[in-house]
């Protein structure tokens, strides 16, 4: 353990002393017995403030109405967000919009906070754990909201590009059934067009070697988006480095998520090029590339 580590730990422990837990068990059990659900009650004092709160609400409603009418242009992002704690039942790719472009990957059993739903309830917006200022979208069938938490109907509706109006307080829970998905287009024998393919960027970068990687990432992930009218049959990638070529395996059956992990041998500091090739069901192919910096030694 380093001197820095010991000093920081000691200073933090001294600045944030651990309180005792006397009475906590009793208080928690009493609150549960009273039917509390752990939701933070509104702050504020006695009845003297009700007029102020009422005034604030009235102004808020008026402002919301004007905002919805376009008087203020694009609505501002809310000051704070609440939602429903949930977990993922399997690994899934999150998109920037319902059915949009992949932006990140969530692992099975990862905990998320669901903050909105799409109009057809087919997608759920969750707060990105890596960036709380950003919301990303997951298919609703991969998310299980915790028991007793606000269900789908209680969530505000949103979407892209223009957010839809949020559900009004007191209004009956929306029960819009999921929109029927259009049937997949059958393979077209005359399909002569190449599939469309785009790649994101490797994150994080650069990728480091093995033994000295105490504070340096040894895994980097990239999302590949591919589509074709007749369907995609394969997506593969190769990483070309001065020391040789590494074949990348997709880490997911869908979403085309690729991960590069060290160790692999024979590379020195360099920037490699990864070429992804997509093939559709009639043999048309297309490629796209992305760069990945690699470092043999972690200097941190």
């Amino acid at each position: 353990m380093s001197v820095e580590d010991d000093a920081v730990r000691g200073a933090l422990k001294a600045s944030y002393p651990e309180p005792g837990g006397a009475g906590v068990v009793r208080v928690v059990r009493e609150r549960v017995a009273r039917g509390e659900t752990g939701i933070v009650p509104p702050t504020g004092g006695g009845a003297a403030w009700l007029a102020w709160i009422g005034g604030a609400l009235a102004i808020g409603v008026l402002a919301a109405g004007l905002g919805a009418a376009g008087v203020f242009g694009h609505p501002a992002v809310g000051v704070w967000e609440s939602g429903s704690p949930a977990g993922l039942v399997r690994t899934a790719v999150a998109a920037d919009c319902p059915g949009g472009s992949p932006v990140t990957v969530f692992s099975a059993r990862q905990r998320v906070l669901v903050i909105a739903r799409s109009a057809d309830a087919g997608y759920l917006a969750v707060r990105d754990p890596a960036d709380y200022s950003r919301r990303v979208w997951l298919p609703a069938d991969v998310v299980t909201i915790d028991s007793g938490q606000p269900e789908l109907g209680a969530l505000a509706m949103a979407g892209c590009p223009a957010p839809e109006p949020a559900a009004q307080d007191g209004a009956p829970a929306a029960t819009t059934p999921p929109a029927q998905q259009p049937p997949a287009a059958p393979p077209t024998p005359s399909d002569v067009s190449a599939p469309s393919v785009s790649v994101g960027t490797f994150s994080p970068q650069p990728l480091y070697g093995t033994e000295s990687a105490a504070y340096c990432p040894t895994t980097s992930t990239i999302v590949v988006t591919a589509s074709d009218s007749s369907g995609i049959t394969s997506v593969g990638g190769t990483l070309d480095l001065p020391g040789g070529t590494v074949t990348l395996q997709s880490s997911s059956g869908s979403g085309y998520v690729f991960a590069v992990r060290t160790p692999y041998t024979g590379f020195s500091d360099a920037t490699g090029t990864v070429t992804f090739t997509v093939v559709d069901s009639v043999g048309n192919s297309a490629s796209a590339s992305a760069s990945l910096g690699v470092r043999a030694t972690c200097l941190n």
Partner: protein
Amino acid sequence: MPNDVNEQAALDLDGFVARDYGRVVAAVGMITGNRQDAPDAVQDALVGLLARPPRLPIDNLPAWVTVVASNRARDRHRTRLAEARAFERLGAPDGAVEDRPEMLDTDLQRALDALPLQQRRVCALHYLADQSVEAIAQILGISPGSVKTHLHRARKALATSLKVEELG
């Protein structure tokens, strides 16, 4: 009256309070910069856990409670700020929002305030909640490499404020 079924399914409340409560409250206080609200936020998380047990099991309860409670405390703080701004716009008298975060007037506190939220979160989970790098990566949904990077940068910044120098 205790809800025995929920409690058995969700957590051993007595065991958690005996083993983990103190360090979790400390970690929440550091993440939010508000030690005053930290115990309430942790208790809210425990009440929610008992009243509405999650369908999926929670592998690491101290880390889970730390993250959930700190998010809740931050939400509460933001709500208060929004209320304060609303009162101010409406001409409410001074002192409408009395509950101010408890702050430490030290170099360390200033260094903590300057840390990005994710670094503060990683630091609190590691140094105060005694979580491993792998456990932090799991609960925050980031890679162990990212955790190490955040930890390294936060430690450097905090050590500078403490005027610590590495030997050798």
